[in-house]
Structures are given as C-alpha cells and as structure tokens.
C-alpha cells in the first residue's frame, strides 16, 4: 500500500449538465438524490425497549457487526469512491462519485446514531476497539484498500463493486434477522435505506466497469474476468472466517453463508458476469429475504403455482395521465 500513488483528477473542466455523454450518469445522479436520507429521520429511540430484550451476547454481536459495517462505509467514503474519480470517463461520472462518497459517510455516521441511542459510551468504545483488533475484518478492509491505491482503474472498480455488493452482507444479515423476529425494527428500517443505496452504487460502478471493458482486447478482458473471480474467492474465504467468528456464538453462521452466496452472485451480475454459486447454496432463509423485500417470496412466482387462478387479461381503458411521466 503506497498512498503516494493515489492521484487526483489531472484536469478539471466546468461541468456542463446540459451536454450529457452518458444518460446513465444523469439517471443515477437523479436516483441517488431522490433516495437521499439522513439518520435523524429514523425514530431509532423506539428500539430502546427492544434492545433491552437482547441477551448480552446478542447485544455484543450486534455492536460488533455495526462497527464492522462502519469500517467498510468509512473506507468507501474516504478512499474508495474518491479513488474512482481520476478514472472517470465523463465529468458527470465524477459528480456521481462525489455523491456516492458523501452518502457512504452518511451511512458510517448512521451506525454512530444507532450506538448513541442504544449503548453506553464504554460499550461503544469497546466495540470500536474490537473492530481494530479483529483480524478478518481488518484483512478485508486491507485487501480492498490495496486496490484503491493500486494503478489499475478497472481493478479498482472490481474491488469497489465487490465491496458495495458483497462485503457488506455478512453484516446486513443481522438487522434483517432481528427485523424478522420483530426486534430492532427501526434500526432495520435505517439499514434498509443503506441497503438500497448500496444497490445503486454497486449497479453504477459495475456499469462503469463494463463501459471500461468496451474496446479492450479479448486477452485483457479474459484477464480481468479471471482476476474478478480470484478476488471474489479471496474475499469469500476471509468472509467465511469472519462470519464464523461473529455468528458461531448464536448458531447463525450457516444461514449467513447462504446470504453471502446469494449476494456474491448479485455482485458478479453487477460486473456483467454470470452468477457463480448454484441455487443449492443460495437458498436464503425466507424470513431474511422477506425482511429485505416483502415481494421476494415464491408466492409471487406465478409460473411455479398451479395457475388455476389465472384469468385472461382484459385491457382496461388507460388514460395517458394514468401513467406518471
């Protein structure tokens, strides 16, 4: 890791939002702005009673998970998204990265809001000390950070997409688990806002990675693809260790791993690659999936149902203003 290698954009021109080179920049900028939120809007204090129903072990686990997430958000906000700016192809892409960087800092701060609402200063300090000392947590941050300071723009985007779309999920599992048991539901609402943002970030950085691949030689494309899967495996192995480290005490590690596989597949898809983990190991606990999205269960799959309830669609008269432009 040689911080000297981190460069600033070499040349800056006034950004003209009336001349767009890639419509995706505007689309994502608008979506990020529409999705903007602050932790102060979430009534976290309603979770104080619920927090008191958790055992000391469960409380400790929750705090550690959240300091782990804080570390990743800090990394992405202060180094990751910023390191993508010098490689941007369009000025609007640079602007989107500044938006992403700021939002990651909002995420990092939100965990502190959760802590200050639910925990004592002593507990908070201990959890942060744990985050510095935990080998697997530090390792995942270091692996990613290494690429941010490296000199390959496309590898930086791969690392960044894997962070946004894969590495957060060993942590995101827990608030979804509590939510499925009607615990810490306001905290879960806040985490869902973070999860939504990370999806847009991963989608966008993955898209820009694919734009960057255009016009490259087949050899270079093959090298980057191979590199992606190698890095994913390296991170995955560490992630499994981290998961056991955290969740063995409550017996949830195997359930968390399914969630990791499921999200690793989505991270690969964001980079334009096929899913790698087979369905047999991505069968996420339905309670977790439903805590994430109430529409995600099998009851919404008409094809696997009997289909007996099907009625031939009759088109209704639809006025133009029915459709929100």
């Amino acid at each position, binding site marked *: 890791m040689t911080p000297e290698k981190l460069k600033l954009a070499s040349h800056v021109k006034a950004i003209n939002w009336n001349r767009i080179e890639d419509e995706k920049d505007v*689309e994502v900028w608008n979506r990020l702005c529409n999705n903007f939120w602050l932790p102060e809007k979430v009534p976290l204090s309603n979770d104080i009673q619920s927090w008191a129903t958790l055992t000391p072990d469960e409380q400790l686990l929750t705090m550690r998970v959240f300091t782990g997430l804080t570390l990743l958000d800090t990394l992405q906000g202060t180094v990751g998204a910023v390191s993508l700016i010098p490689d941007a192809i369009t000025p609007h892409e640079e602007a989107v990265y500044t938006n992403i960087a700021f939002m990651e800092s909002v995420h990092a701060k939100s965990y502190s809001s959760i802590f200050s609402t639910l925990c004592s200063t002593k507990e908070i300090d201990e959890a942060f000390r744990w985050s510095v000392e935990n080998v697997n947590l530090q390792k995942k941050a270091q692996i990613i950070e290494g690429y941010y300071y490296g000199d390959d723009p496309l590898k930086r985007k791969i690392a960044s997409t894997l962070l946004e779309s894969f590495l957060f999920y060993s942590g995101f599992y827990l608030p979804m688990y509590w939510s499925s048991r009607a615990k810490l539901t306001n905290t879960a609402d806040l985490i869902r806002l973070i999860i939504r943002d990370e*999806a847009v970030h991963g989608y966008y950085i993955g898209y820009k990675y*694919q734009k960057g691949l255009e016009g490259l030689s087949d050899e270079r494309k093959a090298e980057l693809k191979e590199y992606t899967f190698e890095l994913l495996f390296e991170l995955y192995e560490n992630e499994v260790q981290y998961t056991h480290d955290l969740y063995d005490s409550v017996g949830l590690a195997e359930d968390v791993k399914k969630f990791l596989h499921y999200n690793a597949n989505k991270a690969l898809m964001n980079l334009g690659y096929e899913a790698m983990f087979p369905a047999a190991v991505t069968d996420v606990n339905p309670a977790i999936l439903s805590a994430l999205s109430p529409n995600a269960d099998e009851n919404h*799959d008409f094809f696997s149902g009997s*289909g007996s309830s099907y009625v031939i669609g009759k*088109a209704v008269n*639809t006025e133009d203003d029915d459709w929100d432009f």
Partner: protein
Amino acid sequence: MSAITAEAAVGRIVSRKTSSPLIYFSSASDNTHRFVVKLGVDAARIPLYTYEDTLLAQEPFVLLLPTYGGETRRGAVPKQVIKFLNIPENRQLIRGVIGAGNTNFGTTYCLAGDIVAEKCNVQHLYRFELMGTSEDVDRVREGLEEFWTRLSQNTTQQ
C-alpha cells in the same frame, strides 16, 4: 463484450411492427437484455430513447421490464415503456408481465411490473434479479411455454 454478441443475437429493430410474443425494455446497462438473450426466444426490444418510434405489437405478448429502484410509484415505470403502453393496441394485446429488479429495493422490488400488471389487468408472472440466474432462465422459458399453451387452450374452449 457480451452486450455486442447479445445485440447480434436478438437483432436490431428494423420495423416498428413486431409479432414477437415477448417484448422487453432494457436500459444501457443491458441486464434485462442479457436475460432475454439467455432465454433464447423470439423477442423485441423497446427502443432505448423516447424520441425513437416505439413498437407496435401485432400478436399477444408478455412484457418484460425492469425496475431501477425509484423510491415511489411515480417514475417507477420507464418512460420508454409508458410510451409503448400509451398505444391502446399494445395494451389490448398484453397478456402478462415479467419483472426484473433487485430485492435491495425492498417494497419497490419489481414495482414497475406490479404497476403495469395492475393497470393492464394481467398477471405479474415472475420476478427475477438483475440479469437472472440460470434457474430463472429455465423457469421463465418453461413457464412461458406453458403459459401460451394454456392461453390458446382457454381461447379454444370459449
């Protein structure tokens, strides 16, 4: 780049009229497009830009469309799809909807599919994420075959 091969596989739109039983929209990210290519069925893509002429369906079809994570209902259906469905003939021929999306968007996962299904009074047949897994591809391919068979039987009986 698979997007280029994908374009060759499905073909560029030469005429506004289409008899394809699957009509879909995909943005420049090409996620939905890749799913359709893997599906390997006759399909027509709604043009990427709203200033382009939209498609005119000639035969019953299923519409496949993505949701990009808008926070509310407003703006969830891509404008290109709105333009397509504002043509009454297209609405008369729609028989079902398939949604693409991301569960990270919570309650708005595949929301655009829900909205179109509701407005056109057809079933939201299936939901999948991003470019879909191989299981999604198999289920949709088989599901669509059964769907069209059942539909033609129902029509014959009436």
